[in-house]
């Protein structure tokens, strides 16, 4: 085991670089926002804590040199998905104050399942990628790089995705349209 650690760890975990420290701090903020988003008893606050989590993930993308993904994340997730969720809360007449029945009765089972999943995943991931090192010297996700690969190698999925978005748009309109005649 010590040999494995030494193999890829001329850079140890005990002497983190500046990027790693920033990643750790922003990651803690992200995780805290996520935990508050799933445990908050005020429904609107849960949606607003989601903004913190998603914005933190956008900063993490920036730290991983994936600029384009970071700005897409800000535009689509923080900009529109959260607004849609807030509209959903508002249109289903969510209570403004704290609602004590926000969690169902099986929350302890859910907590056990989530803790088991976290323990398993973290154990496996740490065991597998303990010695892997990301070089961040060359930016890997500028708009030019992503656009070039998207329109050179991924054109067909890109077009299929636009069809999917059109179908989703039509479906949402059809679903939310009020029927004239009584069913």
């Amino acid at each position, binding site marked *: 085991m010590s040999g494995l650690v030494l193999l890829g760890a001329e850079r140890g975990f005990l002497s983190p670089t500046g990027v790693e420290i920033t990643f750790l701090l922003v990651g803690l903020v992200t995780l805290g926002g996520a935990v508050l988003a799933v445990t908050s008893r005020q429904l609107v606050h849960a949606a607003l804590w989601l903004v913190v989590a998603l914005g933190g993930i956008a900063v993490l993308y920036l730290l991983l040199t994936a600029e384009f993904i970071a700005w897409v994340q800000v535009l689509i997730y923080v900009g529109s998905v959260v607004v849609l969720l807030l509209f959903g809360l508002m249109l289903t007449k969510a209570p403004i104050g704290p609602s004590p029945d*926000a969690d169902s009765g099986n929350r302890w089972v859910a907590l056990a399942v989530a803790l088991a999943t*976290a323990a398993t995943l973290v154990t496996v991931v740490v065991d597998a990628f303990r010695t892997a090192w990301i070089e961040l010297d060359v930016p890997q996700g500028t708009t030019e790089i992503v656009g070039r690969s998207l329109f050179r190698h991924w054109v067909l999925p890109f077009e299929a995705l636009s069809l999917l978005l059109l179908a989703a748009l039509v479906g949402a309109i059809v679903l939310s349209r009020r029927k004239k005649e009584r069913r």
Partner: protein
Amino acid sequence: MHLAYPAVLAALLFSVGLYGVLARRNVVLVLISVELMLNAVNLNLVAFDVWLRDELHAGQSLTLFTIAVAAAEIGIGLAIVLLVYRNRGSSNLDELRDLVERDPGDDNSDGDAGDNTSRPTASAAAAPKGEVTA
């Protein structure tokens, strides 16, 4: 940067989202938790793409596709939630029990009658059926 940092953070975010999906009652809060799980996967994709220096940049392209699919999903999902709320007057998951298996010996086991006996608050909220203006 060690690859373990983004990988572990993504695993933890996924677990938090899983807890939210299992523990929440309101459908919109379940959708919020689903978004958290999708974001955990996206973080993994970007981290591994940057680590592997993929020539095709499959990870980042797939992340873009995932973001677009998630946007479509949240639109359709909220439309369904609004439809259910308009028809039932409730957006709590554990009150939507129409497909629940009832006792075969139960007499009034058809539709709303069973709901009335088991869950008076839910049927009271669903009384103005179809008339709740969203």
